[in-house]
């Protein structure tokens, strides 16, 4: 392919006459600067290469680069926020151009400029070929458009492997929908009706001031609670509160037997402890 490719570096000692050709083009021959109409830089390059009206293998990379850079400059003037893809391609083409114009350096790790250019040409030709094939494919006689199957098919007995009909599409769709639903599932956490530990400590310490003798903890439970859940919660919190107060040295606890009633009484503050 590189044989066909006609950008011999040696030819470019003098300004390439072809480079000036673009300036002579009529306006209508030039690519209209319309980014929206294109699907990315490769698409633009392909369209530009077509304006050279030659076999894609024969395109002049230098002219192509020139046209592309001009296109991008104009497009940028119109729309500052030109997509990064276009600018990356522009930068790369500018680099390619410079390498094509400069004398070739011997380098082992880098591809030669010709190889890079050939690669770009190949990519453009491949895209072009796929487009042509796509058009050919779509112009074939299509089932349901040009040719038709039996309009009123009759069911046939053929050994069936499956009784149920389900396509991959339906399966994936179902899972995706499930995932989507799940992602937004409203999580409702109901506020539980609880008697908090803070409430219990506050109530217990207030009441301990009044009862200095042993008193069953049960007696301190707030009255008038109907909700079974809340009663449980109150008991648990009051028990924890009693332990907490005992730990703080503000109450004493006593239990005569296992599972027996728990007695509590307030403890006078020991002045010595306070000092510590």
């Amino acid at each position, binding site marked *: 392919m590189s044989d066909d490719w006609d950008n011999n570096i040696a030819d470019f000692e003098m300004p390439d006459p072809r480079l000036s050709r673009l300036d002579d083009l009529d306006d209508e021959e030039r690519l209209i600067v319309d980014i929206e109409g294109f699907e990315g830089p490769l698409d633009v390059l392909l369209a530009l290469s077509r304006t050279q009206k030659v076999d894609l293998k024969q395109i002049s990379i230098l002219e192509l680069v020139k046209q592309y850079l001009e296109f991008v400059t104009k497009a940028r003037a119109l729309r500052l926020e030109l997509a990064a893809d276009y600018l990356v391609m522009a930068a790369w083409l500018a680099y390619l151009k410079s390498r094509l114009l400069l004398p070739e350096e011997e380098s082992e790790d880098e591809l030669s400029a010709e190889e890079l250019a050939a690669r770009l040409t190949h990519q453009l030709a491949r895209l072009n070929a796929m487009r042509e094939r796509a058009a050919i494919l779509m112009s074939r006689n299509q089932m349901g458009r040009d040719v*038709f*199957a*039996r*309009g*009123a098919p*009759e*069911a*046939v*007995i053929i050994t069936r*492997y*499956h*009784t*149920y*009909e*389900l396509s*991959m599409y*339906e*399966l*994936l*769709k*179902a*899972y*995706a*929908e*499930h*995932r*989507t*639903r*799940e*992602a*937004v*599932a409203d*999580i*409702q*956490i*109901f506020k539980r009706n609880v008697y908090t530990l803070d409430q219990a400590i506050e109530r217990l310490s207030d009441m301990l001031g009044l009862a200095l003798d042993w008193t069953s903890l049960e007696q301190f439970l707030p009255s008038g609670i109907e909700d079974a859940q809340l009663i449980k919660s109150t008991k648990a919190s009051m028990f924890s509160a009693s332990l907490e107060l005992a730990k703080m040295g503000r109450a004493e606890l006593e239990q005569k037997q296992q599972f027996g009633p728990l007695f509590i009484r307030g403890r006078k503050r020991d002045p010595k402890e306070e000092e510590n």
Partner: protein
Amino acid sequence: MNHHEQMRICEALLFASDRPLSSIALAEQLPEGSDAQAILEDLQKKYKDSGVNLVEVAGKWMFQTAADLAFLLRKEEEKERKLSRAAVETLAIIAYHQPVTRAEIEEIRGVGVSKGTIDVLMEAVWVKPVGRRRTPGRPMTYGTTEDFLVQFGLNSVKDLPGISELKAAGFLDNVNTSRLNLLSDEKPDEEQPDLPMDDDESSSEEQVIS
């Protein structure tokens, strides 16, 4: 247009039509002055000894399997059944999360799974019990079958598209955008190539607490 050409046209029209056609309807497709009736009779003769006959029913014409070959045709009521939505979703969850217990499926779906749903999938030979979970109660776990892979042209369940691939293919797109945002918020690009189902573990945290 000669007679043979006209016969071909009628033949094609009758073949492709999803209902019987009248000779008047056929005549409209033929050059003026054509004798549709004669053409139809010639066609009928042509197919007389074939596996398919051209018959006239209620003044209209249609192709029909020859009566003596009716045994080849399936009865209507054996028509393929469509899977229910719940079944499709359950199948998808089993495929992605296998081995999975019924309770886990219910947890993932957030709805109960009736026994019939799994039965239908087992009847279709897409799902089978694959073992028991070593947890209290030793619940049965389900997985997909060889037939499942065959049905969907997969080499292995690992070939099912992962979440990011579903997203990329546009499957997670069509629902509504606010939902999509929520979904993509959790983790932008979780690539879970090997086990597409693994990125689902978080679902257990979404249990309703009451």
